[in-house]
Structure formats: structure tokens, C-alpha cells
């Protein structure tokens, strides 16, 4: 990749703090309210979204809907918002599609490099901190709400939430995205510590279905994944197979 000056400078000098050099130069920002900017710059691709991650003893279960919108048009109805960062570390993306895809790619690179240096699988906490570093430093320019989840041998299954603004907090259960507001009550009522993997899967599928039913920016299929010491297992639940609730 010799055509890319940014990446080659990073390798020779600082390794972990690659975030500032790899991000675009955010120096000049047009505020679209006061200046006359062309309208096509405003129509950004957003993931709308409902995302969720749950810890269980031995791993994590993550889930997301599959809708990406540009204004009122659904640009992709089968999006995969569960993005692989490392073998046993995934992230759930919400917010701007461009911002989250770019950040996830940068963090995946940084984590891969770090893992090779360590000669060991990386920690989930490391991945979460890399996300937090980029999301906090460029908080004014980015719109990204991310759930980092995975398994490592030091602390087992972990879920870290990095919402818009760049906070980092570990939680046993976390939901995110525009549809998450509709399922806080459901989560508080139905999550119990000590659930096993299948129970977590059912809880996630049910919660996502409820959110997708109510939130216009969420929909499509439910994508689930479970990450544990054994590996990653992915599932898709199609529209007609989603759990049904009474108000239909």
C-alpha cells in the first residue's frame, strides 16, 4: 500500500496511537446551518438501528437489525452491522454508516497489529479502548455509537459500550441505536444475571423484534452472533420467523 503515505508513517513511528494520523484531516468543518452548502452533502447514510449485546458465563451474544437508510430510502435492507474486529472480538455499529465503517476498519488494523506484536489474542478491553480513543478524539466530527463485545481468556465474555461522545463503560447488557429507546423497559424487566447462551439468544431476538416493530429506522432481518472460547456462531432470523407479540 505504498500509495498511502498515512499508513506507512504510522508503521515506522508510533504504533498504537495510529488513530490521529489515519483519520481524515478534520481541521476545516463547514457548519451547514450558517453557510450555503450543497444539499447532497447533508444526506448522509445512517444505520438507524437497534443493536444489543449480552454477557453470559462463557461468552457474549450480540444482535442487530439490518436496515441502512439514506433519508427515507432504505439503501440496504440486509446490512450486516456485526463487524468482525478480531477472531473473537466483534462490534455492533450504529450511527453514520461511513463513520462506523471507517472507525471499525482502523481499529481492526490497529488491533491486528497489536496482536501480532503481543503474539497473543488481544483483549476485548483493548479493542474497546481503541474505539474510545478514536470516538473521543474526533467526537465533534463523528456520529458513531458502538458496542464492543467478545471473549478473551483473561475476563471471559465482555460487553463494552462506546456511545456518541466517546464514553467507555462495561455493562453486562447493553442496547444502542435509535430503536433502543423502545426496549429499555423490556430489558430491565427480562434480563436476569446467570442466563445461558440460548436464553440470551432468545432475549436478544425478542428485544430486537420489538424494537424493529416500533422504530421506523430499524427493520429487515435479525442478525445474531455468539462468541465464546469455542468460536463464533452466526445466525440470521428472517422476517417471517421473528418472534410475534400480541399487538398485531
Amino acid at each position, binding site marked *: *500500500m*505504498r*500509495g*498511502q*503515505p*498515512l499508513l506507512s*508513517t*504510522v508503521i515506522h*513511528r*508510533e504504533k498504537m496511537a495510529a488513530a*490521529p*494520523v489515519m483519520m*481524515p*484531516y*478534520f*481541521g*476545516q*468543518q*463547514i457548519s451547514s446551518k450558517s*453557510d*450555503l452548502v*450543497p444539499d*447532497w*452533502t447533508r444526506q*448522509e*447514510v445512517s444505520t438507524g438501528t437497534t443493536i444489543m449485546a449480552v454477557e453470559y458465563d462463557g461468552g457474549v451474544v450480540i444482535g442487530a437489525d439490518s436496515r*441502512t437508510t*439514506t433519508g427515507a*430510502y432504505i*439503501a*440496504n435492507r*440486509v*446490512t450486516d452491522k456485526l463487524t468482525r474486529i478480531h477472531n473473537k472480538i466483534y462490534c455492533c455499529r450504529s450511527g*453514520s*454508516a*461511513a*463513520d462506523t*465503517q*471507517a472507525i471499525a476498519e482502523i481499529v481492526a488494523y490497529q488491533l491486528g497489529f497489536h496482536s501480532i506484536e503481543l503474539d497473543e489474542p488481544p483483549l476485548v478491553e483493548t479493542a474497546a479502548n481503541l474505539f474510545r480513543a478514536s470516538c473521543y478524539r474526533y467526537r*465533534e*466530527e463523528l456520529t458513531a455509537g458502538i458496542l464492543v463485545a467478545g471473549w478473551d481468556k483473561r475476563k471471559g465474555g465482555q460487553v463494552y459500550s462506546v456511545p456518541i461522545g466517546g464514553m467507555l463503560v462495561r455493562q453486562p447488557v447493553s442496547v444502542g441505536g435509535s430503536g433502543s429507546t423502545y426496549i429499555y423497559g423490556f430489558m430491565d424487566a427480562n434480563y436476569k444475571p446467570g442466563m445461558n447462551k440460548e436464553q440470551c439468544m432468545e432475549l436478544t431476538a425478542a428485544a430486537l423484534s420489538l424494537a424493529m416493530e416500533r422504530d421506523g429506522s430499524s427493520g429487515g432481518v435479525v442478525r445474531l452472533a455468539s462468541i465464546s472460547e469455542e468460536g463464533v456462531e452466526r445466525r440470521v432470523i428472517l422476517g417471517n420467523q421473528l418472534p410475534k407479540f400480541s399487538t398485531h
Partner: protein
Amino acid sequence: NRKLLRKSAPNMLHSLNSYALQPGGFSFENSRRNAVLESNLSQAGYKAPNARKTGTTIAGIVYKDGVILGADTRATDDMVVADKNCMKIHYIAPKIYCCGAGVAADAEITTQIMSSNVELHMLNTGRPPLVAMVTRQLKQMLFRYQGHVGSSLIVGGVDVTGAHLYSVYPHGSYDKLPFLTMGSGAAAAVSVFEDRFKPNMELEEAKQLVRDAIAAGIFCDLGSGSNVDLCVITEAGVEYLRGYDKPTTKGKREGQYRYKTGTTAVLTKTVTPLSLDVVNESVQIMDTE
């Protein structure tokens, strides 16, 4: 306050960052001045020129042997057709082509830059390019420009790993799907795909499907029109079908609509001669094609 600091003391900050942030991208220094000028102009009754957009319907599908890309051929300048037969399917690599929508100049230049980068990458690595590589470079470049490069692209091609189709948006996000449409006529075209697309279609059926999708855009979207261009990419090579279908050519009149003289009976006839002198006579040939 972070921004103020950058504007007033740029040199100091650069010395702090020894691995300097890459200066570049667009300079927005004149934006405020331009906005003021434009508002003054519009008060006086003039309008600043707009960037020409391609209006556009572009589409792509993955079929049994590869990918088929399709596009209309109209370029618009607001509500005027600037080019009736422009080429929206651009060459990137021998078996990778790219359809461009959005701002015409941005789409054109972006694809040319990509084509040049791909060539260099091929020479550096000694390998034929992957569609994923083209997509990655495109999206990293567009993300760097934060959406100000207004090109929406559909990248399709065949490489050693198979046939792939990606869409890339101006802000730098991408989607990988078996069928895609973009541009102002995207909604019209995607409805055709959602109805009739099947995985692993045969060549003729697939070509007809893409043609129909673009035709839907041509007829149902004001920003798209003229002809359908197709580009069929397979393992064996590329077939660029410029002007594959011209659904908007004037039809042949089926019958005669002139009535015979004498069909309508003349009841009265009054002739009033007008005395006029010919002052000037000139002939101007109109371009009717």
C-alpha cells in the same frame, strides 16, 4: 476553541505533531465570502452556476458468470439536459468497471484516480486487482473528503476470488449486495430488481433485467433519460454494450393522418390582400437531430 487555535497558530501545532497531519483536502477559506456574494447576487437577480449532476439511474447485478452493470446516458444541469449521450460506466481495471452518479465531475475524476491507483498497485504487487481493493481505496478517499466529493459509485467486476458488486456513497460508506441501484432513479430501478431478481440468472435474462431496471429509471425519473448502456463482465472478459437499448427514440408513425383536400366543405371564401414589402430575407438551419 480547538478550531480557533488551529486557525490562528497553525505553525505551532504542526511542530507539536511530529508525524504531521496530512495537510490537504479542500480549503474552505472563501466559503463565507462566497455565501455573502451569492446572497448579494440573488438580490440583484442573478444566480450562481451549479455543479452539473448526472441525475442518473445506475444499476448492477451479479449473475451466473459474472456481473452486469447498467446506466442511463443523460447528464443534467438543473432542469436542462447538458449531455444526451454521456458515458457513466467508467473503466477502472481490465475486469473492473464502475458506474458513477452524483456530481458528474467528481464521479469522473474519482474513477480516473482509482484507475491510476489500481495500475500502480498492480505493478507494485504483481497481481491482478481485486474488486475489494478498489472499493477500499475508494471509500477511504471519499471518507477523507467527508462527503464533499459528491460521487456515488457502483463498482463491479470479476477477480480471482469471483464476481463482486459494491456500492460506495459520497460520505464513504459501502454495501456489498447481489443487486444494487443508485442515483435519482434508484427507487424506480430497484423496484424492478426486487420483483424479478434471482440468484445465478442466465446471461440473456440478466441483461434483460438490467435493461428493464434502467428503462424504469429513464421513464419514471426526470433526471434520467436517453439510452441504456450495459457492461457485461465475466472471467473471459468484458463486453461494453454502448447504446444497448434506445427506448426513447421517436417511434414510426403507423398511419396517415392527413385528410384528403375536399374532406371539409368550404362554405364561404373571403380574400383580403395585405400590402407588405420584403425588407430582409435570411435562412437559418435548425439542428433537429
